[in-house]
């Protein structure tokens, strides 16, 4: 592997990895408070990309297809899809909160399928182009060209995640979130409005996924109803690698997975068609040897 290739894959890995990290972070946050995986998370990401595209197409008429349009699309999509997350929580997770875990999982799966099925029905399964003119200006390192767009995307993801970390560790709501994740019953007794905290967590987690969706759509220039499926799987892998429930863990896991995938698929004999197999292998290995992830803590269940 030449140095150029290493740099190129490093850049690719960081970009993909920062998308993974955003989605994984939402996964992890929701898991933290309700102790369940949100199966709909991948489809929330997909919805975010579509909402972003719709907003972008409308706004583009006035502000053009440049940065301003993308930022508008990002913000509106995060807000709208965040609310979608709240709706899913309210009508799917909340009625099932005391149901057996198996029933909750299947219900969540149903919600995910409804989102996915709606997108398929509305788009007819077509790929939609997300045409931006963000330009290809950038800097050259050796023969590798890194565009400003790529840098901004990585920086924006990091900023979103840092903001989230600050929110969780500094604000009252963040404190309430952590309290609920440790002991829901005790939090309720201490006067925390648990329902509201859970709804807020869904909002933030879904908004992050939507942010990731818009950025990925704009970066790759295309959105598709099935884009959330593999993304959900990979974000889960990233969250497991980092340690599910841990905010820094999700970031670390996402970036590591992105790099792993970039370098893994450039190895001889592996090739890009085996990329997903590679990722899945990593997931299984982690589950066998380090199920708590790199930054996760093992939890002793009380009997």
């Amino acid at each position, binding site marked *: 592997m030449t140095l150029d290739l290493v740099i190129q894959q490093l850049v690719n890995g960081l970009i993909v990895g920062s998308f993974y990290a955003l989605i994984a972070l939402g996964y992890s946050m929701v898991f933290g408070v309700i102790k*369940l*995986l949100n*199966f709909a998370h991948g489809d929330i990401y997909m919805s975010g990309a579509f909402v972003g595209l719709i907003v972008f197409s409308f706004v583009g008429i006035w502000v053009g297809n440049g940065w301003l349009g993308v930022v508008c699309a990002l913000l509106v999509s995060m807000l709208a899809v965040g609310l979608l997350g709240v709706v899913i929580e309210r*009508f*799917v997770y909340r*009625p*099932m909160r005391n*149901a*057996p*875990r*198996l*029933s909750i*999982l*299947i*219900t969540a*799966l*149903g*919600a995910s*399928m*409804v989102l*996915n*099925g*709606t997108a*398929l*029905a509305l788009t*007819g*399964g077509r790929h939609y182009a997300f045409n931006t003119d963000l330009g290809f200006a950038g800097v050259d390192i050796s023969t590798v060209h890194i565009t400003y767009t790529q840098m901004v995307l990585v920086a924006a993801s990091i900023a979103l995640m840092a903001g989230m970390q600050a929110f969780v560790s500094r604000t009252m709501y963040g404190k309430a979130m952590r309290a609920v994740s440790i002991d829901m019953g005790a939090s309720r007794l201490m006067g925390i409005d648990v329902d509201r905290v859970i709804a807020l967590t869904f909002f933030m987690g879904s908004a992050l996924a939507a942010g990731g969706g818009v950025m990925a759509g704009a970066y790759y220039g295309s959105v598709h109803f099935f884009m959330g*499926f*593999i993304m959900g*799987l990979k974000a*889960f*892998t990233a969250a*497991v690698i980092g340690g599910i429930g841990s905010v820094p863990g999700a970031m670390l896991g996402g970036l590591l997975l992105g790099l792993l995938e970039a370098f893994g698929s450039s190895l001889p004999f592996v090739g890009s*068609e*085996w990329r*997903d*197999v590679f990722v*899945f292998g990593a*997931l*299984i290995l982690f*589950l*066998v040897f380090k*199920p708590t992830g790199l930054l996760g803590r093992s939890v002793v*269940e009380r*009997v």
Partner: protein
Amino acid sequence: MIDEVRTMPAAVQPQLMRWSVVLPGLAALACALVLPQFANAYVTEVATTALLYIVLCLGLNIVVGYAGLLDLGYAAFFAVGAYTSGILTAEFGFNFWLTIPVAMATACVAGIIIGAPTLRLRSDYLAIVTLGFGEIVRIIARNLDITGGASGLVGIERPEIFGFKLMQVQHFYYAFLVLALLTAFVCLSIERSRMGRAWFYVRYDEDAAAGIGINRVTAKLQAYMMGAVIASVAGCLYAAKMTAISPESFTFNQSLLILLGVVLGGMGRIPGVVLGAILVALLPEVLRGAGTYRPLVTAVALLAIMLFRPNGLWPDKRV
């Protein structure tokens, strides 16, 4: 109300159970036996699909309904069976019947590879890992030469039994009927045995089950492997019926349909699962004109059942 039934003298109960179950069961079986004599090829084809789904749903029911494990990649084991049998007959000239034990063994090994690391962990991890596994099996099938790549495997030999070659729809209808009956018998036998009860104990309270001396990981792994074996046998027969298989027959959607069948009728109970499987097989026929709306209808059905009738259309009155 349910308690009233249970407080009847124990001696009366089995008899009551027997007639209320056996009579409709026999009637259904009689209908199933004579169906191809009266139905046209289209109806027989749909009925054969329904029987295939009955086998698959009964198999998945062991994993989901008995042991309480959510498997989202069940079609992968179906694929393992179909491809194992297909490759062995088409490429290596194996006798079809000999491929069945090989397929079962392959499914067992695949079940252990996926199940052993994951079943020690939380049940929702299993769901995602099995979902990933389903995709991986499909990707592998699409990228290997021996599986025929994306276009799939063709020229799978039709099976012969005592010199009689299974050719027509009716032949496969009866073959699947035998397999469905066999599967139901197997499920019924296990359900009322020590291991079957162990699955229910683990499903209802894992810690209590461990505290009473049940190895929860082994119990779950056995359920998972049992489900895998049943799907693989169904896969063998499916490959023989189709004579050509492609990766697209074993997608995530296939896994979802099988799961829907289990959930729709009522998890954990054989009559409910059979009903669910039949409904799932009819679904594409009913939704023929729906096109891209089809997955949405499936999804809404699943969500509605879980939210409004979580025990299914034909729920368990056993306890």
